[in-house]
């Protein structure tokens, strides 16, 4: 299972990457896309929406199931990846390059409290 060491993770299978401008990009992990199977639908939050940490804010649907995507930290949505919504299969092909949305975190330090790659790997080992 591919779990890049330079990203942060949540126990609900989102990955989080801090960008140069201080925003964070969010997608779903390789483990999540493999468990869901072929993805056919993405619903992304509106730009400008203010999210609480762990708030359900996006939906991903595969052929077999629907699943919520959660905000890893509190903050405001500043961009969404409409290309991913138009071609959800890209999430299966390259889950770490296919971000869903970007947030401006209310509290940048909060990112450090997320799981690192090793801790995330341990959570899916228990699953």
């Amino acid at each position: 299972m591919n779990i890049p060491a330079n990203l942060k993770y949540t126990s609900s299978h989102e990955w989080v990457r801090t960008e140069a401008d201080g925003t964070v990009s969010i997608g779903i992990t390789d483990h999540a896309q493999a468990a869901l199977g072929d993805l056919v639908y993405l619903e992304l939050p509106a730009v400008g929406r203010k999210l609480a940490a762990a708030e359900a804010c996006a939906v991903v649907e595969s052929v077999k199931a629907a699943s919520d995507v959660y905000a890893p930290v509190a903050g405001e949505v500043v961009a969404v990846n409409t290309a991913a919504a138009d071609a959800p299969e890209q999430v299966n092909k390259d889950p770490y390059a296919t971000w869903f949305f970007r947030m401006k975190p209310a509290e940048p330090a909060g990112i450090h409290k997320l799981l690192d790659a090793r801790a995330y790997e341990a959570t899916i080992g228990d699953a």
Partner: protein
Amino acid sequence: MQKQTPLNATHRAAGARMVDFGGWDMPVNYGSQIDEHRAVRTDAGMFDVSHMRVVDLEGAGARDFLRYALANNVDKLKDAGKALYSCLLKPDGTVIDDLIVYFLREDFYRLVVNAGTAEKDIAWLRQLMAERAPKLVLTPRTDLAMIAVQGPHARAKVWRAIPGSEQVSAALKPFTAAGMSTRWGDVFIARTGYTGEDGFEIVISAPHAVALWQALAAEGVRPAGLGARDTLRLEAGMNLYGQDMDETVSPLESGLGWTVDLASPRDFVGKAALAAHPPARQLGGLVLVDKGGVLRAHQVVHTRHGDGEITSGTFSPTLNQSIALARLPAGVAPGDTVKVVVRDRELAAEVVKPPFARNGKALVGARS
């Protein structure tokens, strides 16, 4: 402990994602369910369906017994090898299971029933036999495995994989079967399936299932999991027991009226109840028109005749949009627009008459 088919280790070695299906540890896909689906629609795929139960019924009077036990009429089976799809009904007219019955000899019929219902089916048939035909012998064939090979190139690939099989099976019409001896022992080849494509379902003794699977793979038949099996059967407009019908509904409210002959003088289990209760609901097809998600079982459908409910829903790789079977009020008709509640929204869907796709082609108008 989950039950395993003889092909379990073969699936795992091929990288299959395994899931629990009615107590069986089965492959849901080997990577991409959509790719497996397309392989069956355009070329050839194979499914391990060894979890389904073969049940042989032998003895004088077998036809008389089945004429009463099954909702469809076994008198339609005139030539040896001919198969029939039927429901097994309770006396109240609800559905115990759906099955295929093969007429092999006047005193020998073969039933293939669903995995999750096999034990209750056998118990029910034994109870009926005790009352009406105590000399018949019912034999659950747990010694057998079954592989479904489906797709436009399926038959040709089977013929290459099983030497001598072309002579035996080339002339088989759909819903007909023949047996033959092979290097893997006796093999039963039926031109049946659950995908809307041509192909065979092959019954073989369990110890030889892996050898047959490998011979088929060597001919380019792609392994396909239960995920693709479900999207293929739904596109083909075929019901799944436990989802589209069960012991709470009648076949007449499940799109299966064509399998129940109420007009004939023949009596059968459930007939009186069906005749006394005309259907108030029907099973119809839906194609999602709006964007906003995927149709799924249990979503509510608003129609101008009242509410209905989706029984099976998925994304159709052939139509490239979401489709469903839904139990709808009797007045709803193909062409109607209905609203399906998907999360917090109501999405428009068009009512269509299944099937949605068969033989590689979409059968309902693609939109969007």
